[in-house]
């Protein structure tokens, strides 16, 4: 079976998403898990109805979750580093900037995914 039809890949991608959610919850914080859930909701609702192989969409979803985990991990490090250098008040700067950072990676990744799916759809036509 080809990649696009293979249910094994679909399961792998879904497992990757689940693992990312667990990692974010266990090793980062609850907010990062909420962010990933929000990303998943947005991605599934806005991208899964487009015409493209399901495995490709699941692959992009899994990749997005991985990138999300890395980004949130970095933001957590950013917070710790900032508090170390600037002291405890840096936490407030972090709280204020955190939502902006999260939307940046969500929008960038979603836009690139859409471009990839558009190219694929155009090639099929």
């Amino acid at each position, binding site marked *: 079976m080809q990649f696009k039809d293979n249910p094994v890949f679909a399961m792998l991608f879904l497992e990757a998403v689940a693992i990312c959610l667990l990692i974010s919850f*266990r090793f*980062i914080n609850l907010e990062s898990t909420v962010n990933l859930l929000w990303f998943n909701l947005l991605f599934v609702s806005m991208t899964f109805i487009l015409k493209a192989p399901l495995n490709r969409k699941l692959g992009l979803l899994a990749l997005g979750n991985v990138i999300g985990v890395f980004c949130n991990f970095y933001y957590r490090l950013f917070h*710790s580093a900032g*508090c170390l250098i600037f002291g*405890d008040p840096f936490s*407030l700067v972090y709280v204020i900037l955190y939502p902006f950072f999260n939307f940046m990676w969500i929008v960038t990744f979603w836009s690139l995914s859409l471009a990839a799916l558009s190219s694929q759809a155009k090639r099929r036509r």
Partner: protein
Amino acid sequence: MEVKIVISELDLNFLGAAFVLDPTSAVIVLFVVGPVLIFILFLPAIVELKKPRDRGPRLIMDKIPTPKLSFLYGIVPLDKVEFEWERDFDLSLIHSVAAIIEVLPKFEA
């Protein structure tokens, strides 16, 4: 005092683990990795701006060929404008030729 307590709560994650960094790593994370990450997030946009590969706006113009007049921007009297087609182009000539061409397949048969 009240603010400090709240900040301390923020500093710990849900299960109590904390990220501990040495000062050098902290500086690298804050002043190197951060800007690089932001640059990476905007990199696709920068690439597309510098070397655009998008095909541009959709083509919406006519597929039907029409006589096109050459026109110079600015004040140019139409008498001096160059025409690709005769302005009094005689469509009846086209109909006559078409009628002749229409007959030809019958000879072939």
